[in-house]
């Protein structure tokens, strides 16, 4: 009866996006009468921060202040099509669609401004503060709000744009099994340290040290949020969470939060992480997907650390106290 420590690591590479008929996402961008911009999407923000990210991308592309962009993801029945929020795809797909739509809307905006200022579109630039001015001549300017007003009430034009991301569909070759399902790959490595109580079978995770290569970060605080939340989810999947504890038998399937146990606030160890930025060629501003792999690397790292501590080879999750104690029994039986 003792407490044994172990260290384990795991590396993953994680695809951004997937097959599904080209995996499309569309976006519509338009200016309101007051010069705000609405980005209409069917992509869903689950709390990962998609609306913030798409507003950033739209504001950057349009050349307008972030707080004048409204992202409307209200209704998948009536909005432009989106395949969905999964496969770590949405920043990449929706972000690319928004860039395309916002670029077209920017062009329309500059055309109206050019007409008002009596200059050519090529001579105009935005200051990101809500103004459009002639390059090098800041006094010769018109605000975005005035431009939108003129488009609506004077010139009879819309300031709007359409965008889509569609990857060339790539059906699987029946001979070789080959296909090209994703658009880019992110990478991760996690080192986990654990302490295993050989009397109770309980595993405590002492700490995570991770490196994540996520392409260009669009929003570093949100990336960090995914990493810390993902470490916790990984811990739950590695040690506790299952809907079928005696799979394939379905006995003792949990039905509520008293029996589907997850790690609590007190179980959370420190999460150290380094984020590496190697821009992807096809992501918005070089972004890759980060949503899911942050849960994938901690799980095998924890199981490897348990195996390292005990000198056993457990290959399924979750590694509950019962699994630990049975593995120790088996090890003892094999030794005699």
């Amino acid at each position, binding site marked *: 009866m003792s407490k044994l420590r172990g260290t384990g690591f795991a590396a993953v590479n994680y695809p951004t996006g997937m097959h599904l008929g080209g995996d499309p996402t569309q976006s519509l961008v338009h200016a309101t009468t007051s010069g705000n911009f609405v980005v209409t999407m069917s992509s869903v923000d*689950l*709390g*990962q*921060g998609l609306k913030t990210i798409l507003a950033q991308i739209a504001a950057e592309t349009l050349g307008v202040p972030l707080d004048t962009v409204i992202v409307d993801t209200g209704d998948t029945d009536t909005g432009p099509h989106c395949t969905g929020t999964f496969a770590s795809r949405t920043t990449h797909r929706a972000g690319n669609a928004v860039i395309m739509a916002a670029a077209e809307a920017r062009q329309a905006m500059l055309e109206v401004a050019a007409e008002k200022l009596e200059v050519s579109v090529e001579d105009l630039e935005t200051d990101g503060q809500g103004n459009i001015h002639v390059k090098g001549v800041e006094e010769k300017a018109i605000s975005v709000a005035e431009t939108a007003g003129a488009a609506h009430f004077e010139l009879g034009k819309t300031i709007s744009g359409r965008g889509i991301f569609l990857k060339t569909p790539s059906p699987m070759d029946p001979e070789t099994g080959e296909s090209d399902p994703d658009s880019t790959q992110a990478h991760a490595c996690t080192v986990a340290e654990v302490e295993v109580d050989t009397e109770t079978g309980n595993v405590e995770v002492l700490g995570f040290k991770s490196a994540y290569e996520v392409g260009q970060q669009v929003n570093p*605080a*949100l990336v*960090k*949020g995914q990493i*810390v*939340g*993902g*470490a*916790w*989810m990984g811990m739950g999947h590695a040690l506790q969470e299952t809907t079928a504890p005696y799979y394939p038998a379905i006995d003792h399937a949990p039905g*509520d*939060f*008293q029996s589907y146990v*997850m790690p*609590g*606030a*007190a179980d*959370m160890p420190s*999460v150290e992480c380094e984020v590496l930025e190697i821009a992807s060629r096809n992501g918005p501003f070089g972004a890759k997907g980060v949503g899911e792999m942050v849960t994938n690397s901690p799980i095998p790292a924890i199981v490897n650390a348990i195996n390292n501590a005990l000198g056993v080879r457990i290959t399924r999750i979750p590694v509950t106290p019962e699994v630990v104690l049975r593995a120790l029994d088996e090890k003892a039986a094999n030794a005699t």
Partner: protein
Amino acid sequence: MASRIVSLKVNGQNEEFIVGALTSLQDILRDTLNYTSVKEGCRQGGCGSCSVIIDGELRLSCLTPVQEVDGSEVTTLEGLNQSNSIAALQQQFIDKYAAQCGFCTPGMMVAIQALLDRNPNPSRDEITEGLAGNICRCTGYLPIIKAVEGVVAEMSGASGD
């Protein structure tokens, strides 16, 4: 078991209802009074998303029959917000990115307020114990713990980090 008239003081307002024996406080707060910060994560006492303060104590409104708390004073997040006592905590939640989907946030804030009311200077262990009844599926808890530590540091005059 019969329906009865029950009176409560909810967020400073006197309220009276006719309720059945097992009508939960959660249903009255959400559906009758429209205090929608009281969430319904499980209705079984397992998630803490329905946390409220009853006569100074942290309670789960889903497991509380209204008839049993007749005459009590109930505070939801809306009440804490009106009295402005959680402004610092709200700011810390923003600064530390302590909410993602936000579903757990009202219950977390009520639980944290109850913790700070009984212990204005909690240790890390006391903080995690204070959050033990509240599930968060998104944040991994660390940002929430940091937000509480930030408020505590502010209240004791040190810097928020």
